[in-house]
């Protein structure tokens, strides 16, 4: 509790300073600004409150009303919130996850802000907010995915970070022989299996193929998709994954890694905070990019979280000013630093915090992700395809023999969903 409080105070103070420095000459806003945020976990909550405090300091006349909704609950509440009497700013996710709301005309088109230079430094990330050539929101943070592993156990077994899939399998064999599992994973809520599929498919068939699959242009029964699953199966059959993973959430599965019963975890960078909190030191954990399988430039998952203006909002000018504020270089540096969100800033002019994992992730995404940057299975694929798909992926991980049936089911869903 103490550390959370300290963090939030520090974040508020820092944001205030950054804000007054960056916007000292900005004109004063007045009226109302209603923000509904899903940043309900302790650290993000402090950041969101800090953002509001900083913006308030710049515009003392403005009457800001902040509502923080539970992050999981928001995933279903958003459709009601956008309907009648919507707030002026809301949180959501990038890419296809915006699709239903954009198609229904519930998100404001803010392409003009990108076009007229109101949002400097966002050129690189613009794509994730673009649907049909228009932009519908701004990002505020993103994070890399990759393999987090127990450095101490790797050292004990004399292993090094693998670069190719063959090395990965060789490593895994040593780990399995030592009585451990190679990978912790908890698939109770399905999406973690989506991460594995993303990487297996992007490495086996390349980023472009993965995106074709996401857009419904390739059949799920395609031999190339089968090859992805065949590679994945090698790891499953050798006992690479922990047993009974279908009964655990990702947090519960983390215990296997903390206890040293599993050595690595394919996860987003948010797992680092949980690992540190559970008592692992930075000497015990390290990170490597998912190894190469086929000869393709690497594609990476880097999910982006976003702010949007509902098209029914009443104070759109204030909302636009807030989006500008959130994405400005200084604020981005602040809110993504290690003691705030602990993720990567989306503004090219921002600095990345001096953190072992953020630095590695940033380097990986800027120099070693030529294939392209994907959002994540459940954000790149349309909602329905994602939900049917992830269920199939979970089943595959438990019963690899059901593959034919699973692929037939997914193909059936594909034909219906992308009409």
């Amino acid at each position, binding site marked *: 509790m103490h550390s959370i409080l300290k963090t939030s105070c520090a974040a508020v103070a820092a944001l205030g300073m950054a804000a007054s420095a960056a916007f000292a000459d900005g004109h004063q806003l007045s009226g109302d600004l209603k923000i509904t945020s899903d940043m309900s976990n302790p650290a993000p909550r402090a950041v969101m409150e800090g953002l509001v405090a900083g913006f308030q300091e710049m515009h003392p006349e403005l009457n800001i009303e902040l509502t923080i909704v539970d992050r999981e609950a928001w995933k279903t509440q958003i459709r009601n919130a956008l309907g009648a009497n919507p707030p002026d700013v809301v949180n959501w996710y990038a890419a296809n996850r915006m699709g239903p709301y954009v198609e*229904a005309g519930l998100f404001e088109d803010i392409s003009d802000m990108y076009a007229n230079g109101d949002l400097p430094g966002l050129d690189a990330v613009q794509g994730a907010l673009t649907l049909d050539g228009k932009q519908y929101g701004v990002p505020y943070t993103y994070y890399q995915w990759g393999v987090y592993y127990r450095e101490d156990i790797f050292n004990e077994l004399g292993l090094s970070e693998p670069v190719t899939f063959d090395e990965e399998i060789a490593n895994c064999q040593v780990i399995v022989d030592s009585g451990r599992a190679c990978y912790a994973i908890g698939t*109770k809520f399905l999406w973690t299996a989506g991460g594995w599929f993303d990487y297996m498919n992007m490495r086996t068939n390349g980023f472009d193929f993965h995106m074709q699959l996401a857009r419904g242009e390739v059949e799920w029964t395609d031999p190339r998709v089968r090859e992805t699953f065949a590679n994945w199966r090698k790891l499953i059959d050798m006992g690479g994954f922990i047993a009974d993973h279908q009964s655990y959430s990702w947090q519960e599965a983390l215990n296997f890694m903390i206890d040293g019963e599993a050595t690595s975890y394919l996860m987003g960078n948010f797992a680092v905070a949980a690992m540190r909190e559970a008592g692992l030191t930075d000497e015990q954990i390290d990170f490597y990019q998912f190894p190469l399988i086929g000869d393709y430039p690497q594609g990476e998952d880097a999910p982006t979280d976003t702010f949007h203006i509902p098209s029914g909002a009443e104070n759109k000018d204030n909302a636009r000013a807030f989006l500008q504020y959130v994405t400005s270089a200084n604020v981005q540096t602040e809110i993504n630093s290690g003691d705030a969100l602990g993720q990567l800033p989306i503004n090219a002019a921002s600095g990345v915090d001096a953190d072992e994992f953020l630095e590695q992730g940033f380097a990986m995404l800027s120099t070693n992700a030529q294939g392209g940057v994907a959002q994540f299975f459940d954000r790149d694929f349309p909602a329905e395809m994602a939900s049917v798909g992830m269920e199939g992926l979970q089943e595959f991980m438990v019963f690899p023999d059901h593959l034919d049936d699973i692929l037939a089911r997914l193909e059936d869903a594909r034909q219906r969903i992308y009409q």
Partner: protein
Amino acid sequence: MSSLTPTSRSWYKRNEIALTPWLFLLPAMLFFAVYVIVPIGQSFWISFHQWDGLGEKTYIGTANYERLLGIGDQNIDRKFETSFWNNLKWLALYLLAVPAGLFIALFLNQTVRGIRLYKSLFFFPFVISQVVVGLVFSWFYLPREGLLNAILGLVGAGPVNILGDPTLATYGIIAAGLWPQTAYCMILYLTGLNAVDPEQVEAARLDGAKGYKMLWYIILPQLKPATFIAFVVTIIGALRSFDLISVMTNGGPFGSTRVLSFYMFEESLSEFGFRMGYGSAIAVVLFFIMLGFIGYFLYAMWRDEKGAR
């Protein structure tokens, strides 16, 4: 004195006797219509559309039902099939709560020191929320740390992962549901047992009835109203099972524990559910299944009342 003649009395005064009951019923009927009848109609209406819950509805006739039930050249929706069979499993096994509740009620229907405390303890699971029951049981079933596997380990049986095994998971959840439901049936029977006529029991005893015969011919007939209610609440409880599934397995593993109500929620209202029309079609099917059962019970009740006259 013309004001006293029947013709000049106000219309309301003339029809007071006939109208007043309706006036008293009006608020209830109004609310029932707005919150029950109209939404049922809307569900029917939406089920003929394709709608993501946000944009415009498109009328597609009975396409949702055709897809759901596999009419025409398509296969029956497998998720629907699984959900339907799971619903039947729930119905059949949930009814075990009725005899179990009766057994515990008979056992507790005695006067010993502190019996009130025992009764309250047995009733306890019904008082706590279903969500808590679900959580407790999912910990109980945990594949490694769970108490169940610890007990099985003591007798040398291998570890089982009940909630992770698609063939066992539904039974695991039903077992969790039986815990509070048995307590509910027990309370119904305990109150019923209070109303059992001691003179009849005495008379039966003089005639030499005891044990099973006493229960079957003397006690149970007098418990008929309690049995009826116990059946009704248990069947309705089985059909609307949702919270336990949501808490314990979230419909998984790979959708093997879905029931119709959960499937409906998943298709239309959950994180990835944007098929309001399809969800409504499931709701309509569930509505007719429930209607079948409730209709039967209403008929049985009506028949009994007629027979009693």
